């Protein structure tokens, strides 16, 4: 029980730290860090959604960035049409662009989830290495699709001229935006936690653990795993929608498989199957990258072996190291 206590207090103080961070930062006059930490929170959110797949259901998706990209493009495309005063399409009904965050962010979630549903329903027919590679292939397909999509800037991407608007908030203000990201992240983690320990979660965790046993118990795991895949895609879509706002820019690069790889790194670095760990992983990954890059151009020559060492020796990730206890399906 002490390990649970320890873990809870760590999570609580970590959360508290994130909540008061803007105050600390603006008090010390380093405004820049607010936007850096917004980015960390967003990547953290994407990583948490990936953790649902990797850590709880054993589905190794190497194409998770695709859903981040879809979410980002939804926000950007709606914004683009709103600023050009041109409807997205006029048939079968007229759909106007929008800058309203309360509309476009949920849409980003929804449309990413839809893509995850279609892609997932095909990918989940396969197992193991095939699954890894087919998720990768679908992400690449979307990548090339958006690269050649001239209407929305193709490889040059699409600029937003401001952030989305949400009544009562000024997202152009970095502190407001930070709290939007933090709120989204905390809500998603809370929902994910409920999910993981629900009956649905029990089945899904069982699938990752022992697929054959699940089937012998009379459960067709396909629909459960697909549902989780869709939920994870939705989370990534939310992250994408926020990221489009944070950078005020989207490009197909968001879907590139190296980004999927980096998300995986964040999950593992932070702690697989911990839900909180990936946020820590995102923070450490982005900060290490940023700092290494300032000291050496060849930062990747250090980052690569560092990852290998983490994989080999720090199996439980940073969260496991600090929080103790066991990961995953505890």
């Amino acid at each position: 029980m002490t390990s649970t206590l320890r873990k809870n207090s760590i999570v609580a103080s970590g959360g508290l730290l994130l909540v008061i961070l803007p105050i600390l930062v603006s008090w010390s006059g380093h405004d820049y860090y607010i936007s850096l930490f917004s980015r960390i929170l967003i990547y953290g959110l994407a990583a948490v959604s990936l953790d649902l797949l990797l850590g709880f259901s054993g589905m190794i998706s190497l194409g998770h960035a695709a859903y981040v990209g879809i979410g980002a493009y939804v926000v950007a495309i709606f914004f683009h049409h709103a600023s050009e005063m041109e409807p997205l399409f006029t048939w079968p009904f007229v759909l106007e662009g929008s800058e309203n965050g309360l509309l476009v962010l949920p849409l980003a979630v929804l449309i990413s989830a839809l893509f995850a549903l279609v892609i997932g329903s095909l990918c989940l027919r396969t197992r193991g290495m095939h699954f890894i590679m087919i998720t990768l292939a679908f992400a690449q397909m979307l990548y090339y699709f958006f690269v050649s999509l001239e209407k929305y800037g193709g490889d040059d991407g699409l600029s937003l001229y401001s952030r989305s608007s949400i009544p009562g908030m000024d997202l152009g203000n970095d502190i407001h935006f930070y709290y939007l990201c933090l709120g989204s992240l905390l809500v998603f983690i809370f929902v994910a936690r409920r999910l993981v320990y629900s009956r649905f979660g029990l089945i899904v965790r069982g699938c990752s653990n022992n697929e054959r046993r699940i089937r012998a118990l009379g459960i067709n795991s396909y629909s459960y795993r697909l549902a989780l895949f869709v939920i994870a895609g939705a989370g990534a879509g939310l992250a994408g929608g926020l990221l489009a706002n944070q950078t005020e820019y989207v490009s197909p690069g968001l879907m590139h498989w190296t980004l999927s790889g980096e998300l995986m790194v964040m999950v593992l670095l932070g702690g697989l199957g911990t839900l909180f760990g990936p946020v820590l992983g995102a923070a450490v990954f982005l900060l290490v990258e940023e700092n290494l890059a300032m000291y050496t151009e060849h930062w990747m020559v250090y980052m690569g072996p560092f990852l290998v060492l983490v994989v080999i020796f720090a199996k439980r990730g940073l969260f496991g190291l600090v929080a103790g206890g066991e990961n995953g399906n505890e």
Partner: protein
Amino acid sequence: MKKVVFVLFFLAACTHLAIAEPVKIGMITTLSTKAGYLGEDTRDGFKLAIAQEGGKLGGIPVELMVEDDGRKPDKGKQIAERYIKKDKVRILTGIVFSNVAMAVVPKVVRQDVVYLSTNAAPSKLAGKGCSPNYFSVSYQNDNLDEVVGQYVSETGHKSVYLLAPNYPAGKDHLAGFKRYFTGDIVAEVYTKLGQADYAAEIAAIRAAKPESVFFFLPGGMGINFLKQYSQAGLGREIPVYGPAFSFDERILNAVGPAAVGVKNGSQWTHDLDNEANRQFVKAYVEAYGRMPTLYAGQGYDTARLIGSALKAVSGNLDNLDAFKAALKKADFASVRGNFRFGTNQHPVQDVYIREVVKTDTGYTNKTVKKVFADHVDAYASQCKM
């Protein structure tokens, strides 16, 4: 737990070590990925100018900060934000690729910051999206295609086969060529970005029998295409042309003999006959042991332009308008000879056709002909400043 917080803050604090005195210049450029050498040359050209003045530009001490954007737009934006917010940089430069530029430039120029482009100059930023805080020291992207379009028409080729990657820049570049080409377009083929094998396209070219081929395939794609084109034996039958992006000195040494004799368009060549250029090429070779590329020349020019303006305002950037006015005068000796800014703050300059030759030290270009004098880009008229 405390350890983690400590580590996080330590990491965060590390980003905050700087000294205030000299004028800071923030360079965001691409040093990793396959295209890393572009950023390397840009940076080295820029650094050479600083080194020649012993750490100063225009007599004002400067501090050059360089960071790799990895060709990722969002990373470029992050770096820009840090330069501006944390390091209080007012002068930014160095972006190689249009997609990074499109993510960074429109945002930063709305703040009180000057951006000088050493390379990427997409049409959007030259026309409607132009800004008083944005200067392109290189060119407008299409310039080097326009010159080839003009030259190919002058040579008397009646038809051309066009090839470019399937992304907006590819279409822009072909549009630039078509703007000045008067003959027939046999076909306009868009290939996959990053494609390695061009056998199918080359077979199609052979079958279509055009009088000439124009391609825009930057980086490795161009190397692949040129090698395979020459191996297919087409090099002797149908001449190819392209903008300088596939013919800089570092690429040429990877293409080898396949490129010899190919004519390409550029605003600069190492053999341009002016004093600034002669000393630049000599100093660059001494400093880095390799021939400069056009990117190095652009980096060097940008640094010297900044120097001229810093000198004019005595290093005082508090009044940014004065600094911008001084920049706009372009009161420096460019390695390109003629150089001034047009209304959209893009260069008005001479553009040349050059030819790939082999020398004792490797492959390089020699100037063949000045095709455009005082060339103005096609988007200048759309710019309302």
